[in-house]
């Protein structure tokens, strides 16, 4: 198990390094830099150059890259050119926002999805099964940002039950906080729930048809007991892999949803940084998102390995 862990960690580290190199490659190719945001249309090229010098943007790229790696290894992600604070600060400020939405969306998707999937399996080929499958299929086919817009139209603008956007920090009241993340989290969860539901259903069906279940059945144990004690744990194992996949989709989805709902999260920070060529933030933000994705997948892999010994020997 330790060896497995070590191998996975090493693998993740390599991936992380590759990600950082890729972000640098992207930035190197991107035209424009922050000076063009500070100045308006009729600024002259001399004014631009003057400002670039003042901001230290005129060093050659390889030198900037080496500087950056040296600092990251000592724990400093650099300083945002435009936001007047360190990248780490900017990320940490937004972390709770993005995490709360993504975590809640993930939890909702998993809980509701698993519940729906198991329900469908238990009522295989009867109407609850059909219903769950149809709803799951629709969920997969709806664009999450459009669903978000629809929610705003109906529940915020129409009924006024929720704010039309923005984020209310939890320190300013739990109810306001809940209301501000309800629609974005729901929009994300509903579109991912379908995956989980289908996977859980299939997995459960698989388990229910296996010998040990039929044996227990024959022994006269109650159906519910069988399901809970034997079926459920086994059925949930493949669901773990889906969680890994969804985590990635949720990270991407959160980026767009933050735009739809004007939520100041990490996704919006990075988009803003790309639009204004704030290089340190772009680097730090992309790396951060990649790190989250890798950590989630690592946890999923570990859980999977803990449950299924065959995986460890891979």
């Amino acid at each position, binding site marked *: 198990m330790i060896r497995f862990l070590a191998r996975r960690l090493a693998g993740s580290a390599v*991936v992380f390094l590759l990600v950082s190199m890729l972000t640098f490659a*992207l930035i190197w190719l991107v035209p424009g830099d922050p000076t063009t945001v500070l100045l308006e249309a009729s600024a002259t090229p001399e004014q631009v150059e003057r400002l670039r010098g003042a901001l230290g943007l005129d060093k050659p790229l390889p030198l900037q890259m080496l500087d950056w790696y040296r600092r990251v290894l000592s724990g400093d992600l650099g300083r945002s050119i435009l936001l007047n604070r360190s990248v780490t600060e900017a990320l940490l400020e937004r972390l709770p926002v993005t995490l709360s939405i993504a975590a809640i969306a993930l939890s909702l998707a998993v809980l509701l999805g698993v519940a729906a999937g198991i329900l469908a399996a238990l009522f295989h080929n009867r109407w609850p099964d059909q219903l769950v499958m149809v709803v799951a299929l629709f969920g*997969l*086919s*709806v*664009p999450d940002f459009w669903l978000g817009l629809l929610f705003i139209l109906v529940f915020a603008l129409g009924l006024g039950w929720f704010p039309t956007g923005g984020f209310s920090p939890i320190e300013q009241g739990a109810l306001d906080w809940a209301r501000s993340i309800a629609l974005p989290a729901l929009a994300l969860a509903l579109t991912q729930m379908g995956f989980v539901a289908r996977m859980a259903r299939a997995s459960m069906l698989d388990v229910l048809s296996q010998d040990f279940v039929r044996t227990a059945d024959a022994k006269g144990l109650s159906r519910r007991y069988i399901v809970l004690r034997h079926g459920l744990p086994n059925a949930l194992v493949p669901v773990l892999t889906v969680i890994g996949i969804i985590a990635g989709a949720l990270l991407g989805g959160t980026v*767009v949803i933050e735009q739809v709902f004007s939520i100041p999260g990490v996704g919006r920070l990075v988009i803003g940084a790309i639009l204004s060529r704030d290089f340190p933030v772009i680097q730090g933000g992309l790396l951060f*998102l990649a790190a989250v994705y890798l950590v989630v997948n690592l946890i999923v892999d570990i859980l999977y390995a803990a449950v299924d010994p065959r995986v460890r020997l891979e």
Partner: protein
Amino acid sequence: MSEAATTPLGAMWRRLRRNRSFVIGVALVSIIVAVAILAPLLAPHDPLRNNFRARLQPPSAMFWLGTDHFGRDILSRILHGARISLVIGASVVVVTGILGTAIGAIAGFFRALDEPIMRLMDAIMAFPAILLAMAIAAVMGASVTNVVLALSIATTPHTARIVRGSVLVVREMEYVEAARALGASELRVLFRHVLVNTTGPLIVRLTYVFAIAILAEAALSFIGVGPPPPAPSFGNIIANGRDFMIVAPWITIFPGLAIIAVVLGLNLLGDGLRDVLDPRTRI
């Protein structure tokens, strides 16, 4: 019992025909493709024609789905938008198919390259596709080509993984050993069996890739890195309508419904194909 019924291909086709998902999916997708191809004939108005006196009209006899803030007919734009979205989706499928197969096959065949290639694939998968596409658009401008490029890059790693998986399976198979023992050329044997083994999962995967591409293209257009104006891609229509959601919600609603229809059809198609071609992953 006719001859055709006993061939593996024939049997497969019969199973597909009986699969409800497949049938509905094929029907839906065919209708949409037909509509997209016939869009110039079916569209009641020119999707690009500005008519500023008819701005932001609700659905009416003249404009069945209403007009946008240029006075352009939403129905006509959606019909032409279907073309753009389908072309993008198909292009992504082709590029991913070729790239993913090549990369996956190489990783599967050559053990030495397996680890580094798969790590690179992992690194690419760690990028949210949206951010990747934005960065590419910033570098090279927003266009159909760049959307296809960005989405292909985003979907290739998973495709490669699937192909690689199939290749690995085949390598271990007993009959491959047996065939080799019988002296058949190693490459040819591997090739034939890989092809047979991979095609099923690959087709299923590419169908889903099509669906993913449609959804992703809409999101990218919405953010502003999709096909440039005046192209009526679904995401562009929705994005254009965003500022007018309060006064003209039809601009937002109808293209979304169109997206659902297309993606639903493709998902059904994918499910049907998977039931028959790749039953191991059947859910």
